[in-house]
Structures are given as structure tokens and as C-alpha cells.
């Protein structure tokens, strides 16, 4: 691989390290009673409030509609994601340093699979969280479920929810983009295709 492509892969790997230290996703809530908004940060290894007490406040509000308490300690994914990120970062570094287009493709495919699995898992967690409601909840609106959106905005009773990737999330997407770009660059060079790499996809 060209040295430029290699540096791109190294950069992609380092971006995954960034994702260990910043929230990956942010769920923002606002309501008439909460003009200032409340926020949840989903990190690789934990879930926290945007402000120190936001998680507790969201849990207290959610008990009215029978949602389970979000207790980060009991979410097993939070134990799996950090080592997976580290694994991809290290193997990515190895690919970047050692070179090899095929190796990079393999890394990319695995990374894409893991990413998709992660997003699916997050979606199912949200699905479960929004659907598995306590039947004794004080507020029960027939037909209403409370699954937060994966990305984008949704009105759930009085609460407007906005769900978006955050710094860590953008780092993961950026990592995938850089690695994919490095791969396409290499392929273009190898096959001599003159077109834009995007057209060749």
C-alpha cells in the first residue's frame, strides 16, 4: 500500500481510540416542564446524564409510563464494546503498518459487520426499552410505545426525543470512512481504474 493509504488506515484506527473516551450517541429530551432539556450520553462503556442528575431524573419520569430503569451496570453491551473497539484499533494499526490491500478489505468487512451488529443491538435495546412496559404503570396510553429513535426526532407524549451520534460515534463513522477511502484508493491504483472510486463501488 502507498504510504498515504497506510497513514489513512493508521488514522482510522486511532479514531477508534477516540471513541473510547467520548460519548458515542446522545439522546436529548425536552418537554414543556423541561425547557432546558435533559440528555443521555451513551458511551462505549457507560450511560451517563448530560448533567450529573439527568439519568436519575429521566428514570424517575419514565417510571410513570412503566419503562424499566436504565441501570448502566446491568447492560452487558457496555462491557463488550470497549474491548471490541480496542481489538479493531489494534488490528487496524497492524494493517496500516504492515500494509496489504486484502488484509484491509478483510478488516473493513469485519468492521462493517461489527458496526451493523452494534447498531442493530442498540436498536433492539431501544425497542425493548420502549415496549417492555410495566403493566402497573400509572400512565397507560392504549397502543402507545416509547421506543426512542435510532437517529432523528420523535414525539413521545409530552417529550420530544432527538437521537444523534456524538463525538465518539462520529469518530467511528469517520474511521470507517477513512479506511474505506484508503481501500478504494489502493484498488484504483491496482486496477488502474481512472474513474472516481465512488463510481467503481
Amino acid at each position, binding site marked *: 500500500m502507498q504510504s498515504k493509504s497506510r497513514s489513512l488506515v493508521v488514522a482510522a484506527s486511532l479514531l477508534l481510540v477516540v471513541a473510547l473516551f467520548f460519548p458515542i450517541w446522545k439522546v436529548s429530551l425536552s418537554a414543556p416542564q423541561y425547557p432546558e432539556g435533559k440528555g443521555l450520553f451513551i458511551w462505549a462503556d457507560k450511560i451517563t446524564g448530560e448533567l*450529573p*442528575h439527568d439519568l*436519575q*431524573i429521566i428514570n*424517575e*419520569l419514565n417510571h*410513570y409510563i412503566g419503562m424499566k430503569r436504565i441501570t448502566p451496570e446491568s447492560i452487558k453491551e457496555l462491557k463488550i464494546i470497549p474491548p471490541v473497539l480496542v481489538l479493531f484499533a489494534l488490528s487496524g494499526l497492524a494493517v496500516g503498518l504492515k500494509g496489504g490491500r486484502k488484509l484491509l478489505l478483510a478488516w473493513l468487512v469485519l468492521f462493517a459487520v461489527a458496526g451493523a451488529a452494534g447498531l442493530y443491538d442498540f436498536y433492539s435495546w431501544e425497542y425493548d426499552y420502549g415496549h417492555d412496559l410495566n403493566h402497573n404503570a*400509572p*400512565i397507560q396510553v392504549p397502543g402507545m410505545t416509547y421506543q426512542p429513535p435510532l437517529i432523528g426526532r420523535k414525539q413521545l407524549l409530552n417529550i420530544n426525543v432527538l437521537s444523534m451520534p456524538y463525538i465518539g460515534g462520529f469518530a467511528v463513522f469517520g474511521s470507517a470512512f477513512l479506511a474505506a477511502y484508503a481501500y478504494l484508493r489502493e484498488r484504483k491504483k491496482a486496477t488502474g481504474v481512472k474513474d472516481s472510486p465512488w463510481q467503481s463501488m
Partner: protein
Amino acid sequence: MEHKMSLKWISCRCLVLLVLALASFGCAQKGKPGLAKEAASKVYVPPGSHDEMYAFMSGGFSGQVSVYGIPSGRLFKVIPVFSQNPETGYGYSEETKAMLNTSYGFVPWDDAHHPEFSQTNGVPDGRWLFINGNNTPRIARIDLHDMETAEIMEIPNSAGNHGSPFTTMNSEYVVAATRFSVPVPQKDVPIASYKENFKGALSFVKVDPKSGHMNVAFQIMVPGFDYDLAHCGKGPSHGWAFFTCYNSEQAHTLLEINASKNDKDYIAAVNWKLAEKYIAEGKGKSMPANYYHNYVDEKTRVAKSEKVQSVKVLDPKECPGLIYYLPTPKSPHGVDVDPSGEYIVGGGKLATVLPVHSFSKMLKAIETNQVEGKIEGIPVLKYSATLAGEVKNPGLGPLHTEFDGKGYAYTSAFISSEIVKWKIGTWQVVDRIPTYYAIGHLSIPGGDSAKPWGKYALALNKVAKDRFLPTGPNQPQSAQLFDITGDKMKLLLDFPTIGEPHYAQMIPAEILTKHNQQIYALESNGNPNGIMMEDDAKVERKGNEVHIKMIATRSHFTPDCIEGIKVGDKVYFHVTNQEQDWDLPHGFAVQGMRNSELLIMPGETRTIVWEPKAPGVYPMYCTDFCSALHQEMQGYLRVSAAGSNVPIKYGTGK
């Protein structure tokens, strides 16, 4: 002789004017409708927007402090200070009762007069607000982070703590002057022995720069006059404090006549830096005393009382240079120091001119011994030697002066019911505007500090009469807001106040909003009866005391059903509000409890005691509409006959 004659003539004229002023009381001119739109635009704060400034107003005989927004005149909060407040449980709950302890016992009320911000380099810094209790001499300190009373210090050897609690430039001290001289130490003597037995005390209360904790550092024993108001020096006069006094006649009865005889009374100038030196040299005598120091413990947030049993006293006779009297016409009330610290304005309520003393001339008069006599060892300086100038025609009954920082002073005139604006240096009156009615203090943001924010003046009027819709014989007092940015003062707004607003202090909002506290952190709740989680809730019997450690959270109490209480028990409800959400207090009340309710802020624990008198089942509930299921936030307390063997049993949702 001629001088005397002319004064008499002036006094006569003054009386005539007074009668005229009183006669024209009811027919004062109202605001012109054409001006209303312009004024409205200056006080209109659109819905959802915030006021530019806070005003902290004394609640007078309500004993409290009220918090208003300026320029809207909207009331935000009444801070309980010297009076019990059943609305929050202040002075009723076990955590706050001690705040109102005094050497006379539990006093549930006081007469609050003068709020004063703590200062750094002569500028209000937004840390604390001090206020005096006039009736049972005390000074309170309010913490401006949570706007709650943090400390109350009783002042010994004092009576009528009126000249208080004015601060030095860095709040090294707040001062307290006794309005009523009394026997010191107190003893049973004939009232007619006033001259022989009665003394005044000027107190210097030290403020700890970190914690804000107060202690009475020393007192100066002074002749038995009525020490009325005070202000401390700043800039060049930092290190000095100035106290007005009237009744230099030392009358003890019918003071309105007998204490109004002398042409001049005094401003006492006290060199407190020298006093510190004398104290360090051991000149202060420890005198037995008995006074209370009440404060909220920072860790537990539970109020504690400490009894203090001595006070250091300085005798001016043994401390040369400590104190000088500046003759000031006539029964002076306010004493106000301009932002530069050079000029000291005396508001003689019966005077026809407003005298302004010069600090530098005072120092020179001391140096050159311009003394006209001595009173109990205190040198009296010559009036002409300290005088910088007199403001002629300052209105009738000039009381108080504040400053705009742009070279102008504003004096309130009670009898002629007006604010009079004059220029420092020329002493010329440049504008005057009526107030409705009978202004006492006035307030300009930072107007008694080294750096006024001279945009508004607030008139604190004693009488509202016809200004508002009538409310029976007892009308509210009235505050009036003026725009003082132009050459001419403009009336903007009238609004009613809590109690009698003797004095107010205003401060730009951002100085306070940046450190406003929204909750008490549950993890640092140090109340010995506080609990963190619902699982920790419990009911324990200790003899005839039942202690209920309870959680309040949206929308239930844990426990909410309690049995095993008996007639004759003393039931302690220790209620912790588990919420950590801003503006989410819970309330707590029990039917027939001969006590107040509790209002518990997020993360806070408050305790109220109930002594049930008859068997039965008593509901309890949350009184502060906390949530959609607030009405469901209730519970039952079963009370059994004395001697019955119903066991303690409790829980929620079981």
C-alpha cells in the same frame, strides 16, 4: 445670638412648610398618561425573559427579606430570616428552630431594616446579604447561592439594632449601633437615671472571609445617645466607620420634643483600624455577656445555637484617637459615604440644609486639634473644620443619600416626599421629583458602594394611600422605580411590597445567577437523619419517641402507611426529598399536626415533630404540586391508644 435667632426662624418656617406638606398630602400630582407608554417600555420584561437586576428588600415588621426583579417589580421570593414561616417550616422544623434562639429565649419575629451586600474592594460581590433585626438586636447573613438564611448573630449590650449591618470595603466587619441606649450591663434602675446609667454600644462584627461566619469582635462604649445609622468608609476613608446619633440631649421621655432641642447632634467617626490595634495591645476589656450565635452547619445543614458569654469592650477614654464627634444638624438620620470615600453626607431629619463632611478635612481638623469640646473623653470637632459644603434646599426631612457614580447624589426627603438630586462638589440641587408618599430610604444599585450601577433609583415609601386598589385599613407600603440615566429623573413604576421596605439593595442579575444553586446534592446530604434510598427508609421507636426516616419522591412517600404510633408519642418525621431535579420541592403535612408543614428542597432532609392527641387514622400528603400524580402522593398514620400493643409496621405498596 443672631445665629440662634435665624435658626429659630428657620425652624418656624420649617414647621409651616410641614403643615402645608401634610395638608397637600392627598392632592399630589399623579403620573401623566402621556408618559405611560415610554415608562411601560422601560419596565416591560416580556414573558419568559429575565429582569436586569435583583432587588433585595427588607420586609420590615414581617421580619423577612423579599426578592424582586427590577425593572419589572415582580416578587420572586420571600426569604424567611427573623420570623417563623409556616409556608416552608422555617423556625418550626428541627433543622431551623435554633436560628431564632436568643438570650431572651425563642423569639419568633423581628423588625428587619437594612439589607447590605457583602463587598470586595468596595463593590457588592454577590456572596452574602446581611440584614439587621432591630427589635431583639441581631444580624442575619443570607447565603446568596441558595438565598436562605445561614446565620444569625445576636448583639449584646445593644437595644434597637438600627444602625446596622453596614459593611466595610471587604466585609472585614459589619457594624451595629444601638438606637436605644440602655443600662450596660443591664440592671434594674430608675428610668430617670438615664444620664447616669445608660450607655450606647457601637459593635464591630467580624466576618470570616471564607465561611462568612460572624463574631462580635469588639464594642465601643459611647455616651448614652440614640445611635441611628451608619456607613463605613471606603478608598481613603477605609478603616473608618461613621455613625449618626440623635438625642444628644439624653432625654428619656417625650423624645419628639425633648430630643429635638439641640441645633446639632453628631456623626461619630470611628477609626476601626486603630481599634484593632488597641484590641491587639490588650486594651479591650472582656466583659461578661450573654448572647446567641446561631448558624447552619455546612455539612449537616442543621442550625445550631451557641451561647457566647463575653465580649471585648473598648472605652474611648482609654483609647485616644479612636472616635471623634462631628457636629451635624439636626437629629441626623442617615450617614452616607460617596463612592470616592471623601464625602460623608448627614441627613438631618429636622435640618434645613444637608451637611457634607470632608474626610480629608476631618483628618486635618484632628491633626490641627480643631476641637470645640469633649463628651466623656470623645473630642468634638468644629463643624466648620470638617464641612465640605451644605446642600441648600434639600427638601424637608432629608433622610438618606445614595450615589449614581457619575458625580451626583440623590437624597430622600420624607416630609416633602421627594427625591432631590444634587451635584457632588457644587452642592447644587439639579433636579427633584415627587414620591408617593413619604419616602424613607432610597436605593440605587450599588448606590452605597464604591461602584454604583447608576441606572435606577428605588424609592421605598412609607405610605401608599390611594396608589393601589384599597385593601381595608391596612394598605401595603409602596416602592417606586425611577430612571436616573438622564438629566431629569423619571418615574417608571409603582409596586407594593412585603411589610415595610426600610431599605433595599439592588445588584445586576448575572452576579447572582452565575452561582445560583438549583439543588442540594443528595450524596453530600449530611443530615444525621437523612437517607439516600427508599430501601433505607425506616420507623424506629426510642421510648416515647418515634423516628420516621422517610423518602419523598415523585409521586409517593416511603413509607406511606405507618402503624404502631401511640397517643403520647413524639413523632419525628425526617423527610428526605430524593429528587435531584431543579424546582421540585415536596411538601409534607399531617392532619391536625400542631406545627407547620415542611417544604423540602431536592436533596434536603427536614424534620417536623407531631404529637398526636387521639387514636385514629390520620392522612398525610404532599403539599407542593410535584407531578401528574401529586394528588396520589399521600399516606396514612395509624395512632393507637397509649399503652396499646400495636406493633410498629410500615411500608409502601405492600
